[in-house]
């Protein structure tokens, strides 16, 4: 396990990401700017899931619900005339945290298979709720009337500025998560995943720590949701669909559980793969499905594990 190699890989990836806008402009392919911005947004979502799944061992199959909550916070407020990004995103964070608190408080009392099914069920509940509210488009969704306004600071209508905003947030969250998982709090979470019986025996009650992690992850994913709705300029309950949750889990696993770089790589690979395959055939899922199955069966360590000296974070 070589920290130096991992740091190098991290810096390289971040430099590559930072270079996308000028390169895209040079090649006159604005599509790539859009694509990589999308990748980074999902990387943030995957990063948040990695916190509870990778480090915490909590197999949450409903994580995409927070993408939806964040997106709806922005979309609904915009629909009602509140376009201030500061207000919208603050609401997105608080709303996601509250939803995470509610879902987590009940779900975290269970474990294993129950936890998987319950998180899935609760996220679907909100998905159906989103579909049933006609005023916000029901299952068709609705256009975002105006992007989040950050008066004077940055305009999300400027593709490059928006890109670097997302990039900055990604780097910020990667750093925050890194601090978090190595703090006292993070150690408890990781210990509870590694050996729950031992953790209880030395005097920790995992519930409160896990719930806190769940709320933090939910809030972070809510920010990703706010970014996503601005990215697509369209609000739809499909953000919360359970297949989206499955995709997020794959990003975390493919990238490598419990590493800082993993979620970014996982998001990139999955989205690039989907993009590539869908260019090939409209029935790309029939190829992706078995590919994912094979990945689970054979590529257990994930991509970060393939890096020289890569693997679990220290």
């Amino acid at each position, binding site marked *: 396990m070589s920290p130096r190699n991992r740091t190098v890989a991290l810096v390289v990836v971040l430099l590559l990401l930072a270079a996308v806008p000028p390169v895209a402009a040079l090649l006159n392919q604005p599509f790539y700017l859009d694509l990589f911005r999308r990748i980074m947004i999902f990387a943030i979502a995957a990063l948040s899931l990695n916190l509870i*799944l990778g480090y915490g061992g909590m*197999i949450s199959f409903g994580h995409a619900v927070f993408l939806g909550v964040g997106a709806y916070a922005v979309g609904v407020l915009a629909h009602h005339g509140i376009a201030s990004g500061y207000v919208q995103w603050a609401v997105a964070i608080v709303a996601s945290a509250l939803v995470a608190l509610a879902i987590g408080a009940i779900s975290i009392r269970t474990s294993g298979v*129950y936890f998987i099914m319950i998180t899935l069920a609760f996220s679907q509940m909100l998905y159906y709720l989103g579909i049933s509210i006609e*005023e916000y488009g029901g299952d068709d969704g609705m256009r975002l009337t105006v992007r989040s306004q950050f008066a004077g600071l940055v305009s999300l209508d400027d593709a490059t500025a928006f890109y670097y905003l997302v990039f900055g947030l990604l780097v910020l969250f990667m750093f925050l998560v890194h601090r978090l998982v190595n703090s006292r709090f993070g150690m408890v979470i990781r210990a509870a995943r590694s050996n729950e019986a031992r953790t209880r025996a030395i005097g920790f009650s995992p519930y409160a720590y896990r719930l806190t992690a769940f709320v933090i992850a939910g809030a972070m994913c809510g920010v990703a949701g706010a970014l996503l709705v601005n990215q697509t300029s369209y609000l739809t309950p499909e953000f919360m669909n359970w297949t989206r949750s499955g995709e997020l*889990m794959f990003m975390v696993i493919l990238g490598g559980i419990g590493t800082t770089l993993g979620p970014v790589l996982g998001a990139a690979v999955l989205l690039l793969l989907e993009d590539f395959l869908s260019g090939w055939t409209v029935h790309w899922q029939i190829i992706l499905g078995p590919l*994912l*199955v094979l990945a689970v*069966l054979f590529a257990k360590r994930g991509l970060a594990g393939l890096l020289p000296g890569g693997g679990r974070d220290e």
Partner: protein
Amino acid sequence: MNLILVIEQALNGLQLGVMLFLMAAGLTLVFGIMNLVNLAHGSLYMVGAYLATAFYQWTGSFLAAVPLALAGALAVGIVVEIVALRTLYERDHLDQVLATFGLILFFNELIAILWGRAAIYAAAPPWLSGHVELFAGLRYPLFRSVIILVGVAVAALLWYVVTRTRLGMLIRAGASNRTMVAALGVNIRLLYTVVFGFGAALAGLAGLMAGPIYVVQPGMGEEILIQVFVVIVIGGIGSIRGAVAGALIVGMVDTLGRAFLKPTLATVLSPSAADTAGPALASMLIYMLMAAVLAVRPEGLFSARGGG
């Protein structure tokens, strides 16, 4: 709101409960015995629905289509078990969830390629399409009545197999100690395949009965699967009794809620408020119920295991 309407909706709730039970029984057996979380269970349901519709169109006879569709679902289930699932028994739940998720994508797309994405409205055969007069004033669709009867019969059959036959004994033994059962010389692989096939057949049966009532389209398996999860969580994993109880409760609550919540709310709220709140709350009802059960009994009502 009159008594006839209530009884009719209660019967609908019973019918939904039956379908949920057929799905839940298969899923909970597979989990209880092989410790396998199988998200692709809904795909087998979908396969049953599509095969039944196809065979009916092809042969013109519903009576022929039923066994053909069942056999088809069973075959698909066994192939999936042998090809993809055997390696998953030893893996942890996360791997199982992800791998079977991949299978779902595959099946949904396969169906879309073969039959297109548009919803198919399958019809029940003419001789099952009428109504049955249950008592004065209540005429209930014959097809739904048949579903209820079939469901009760299957439940009885299952109870008999699990409690009175050697296979059932092996199943129950395997659920609590599979190494021991293997050590006794029982072919565990075969047992697992049989159990899985049985679960697949149950799902296929639910699917073929669902065609004429619900819409047949890619992704239909996942819609019902979520409800099946709620059933299993409420009833308790690994328990057939739990599957029965959970299925009936969920079927009733969901159906009655959707039918009567809006009018009930309209008596205390304004009509327009009830119009939005009614359907929204009704769709959330079973999940709220699940949360309530979990708050009191995190392992479900009849858990066969210690939970989780």
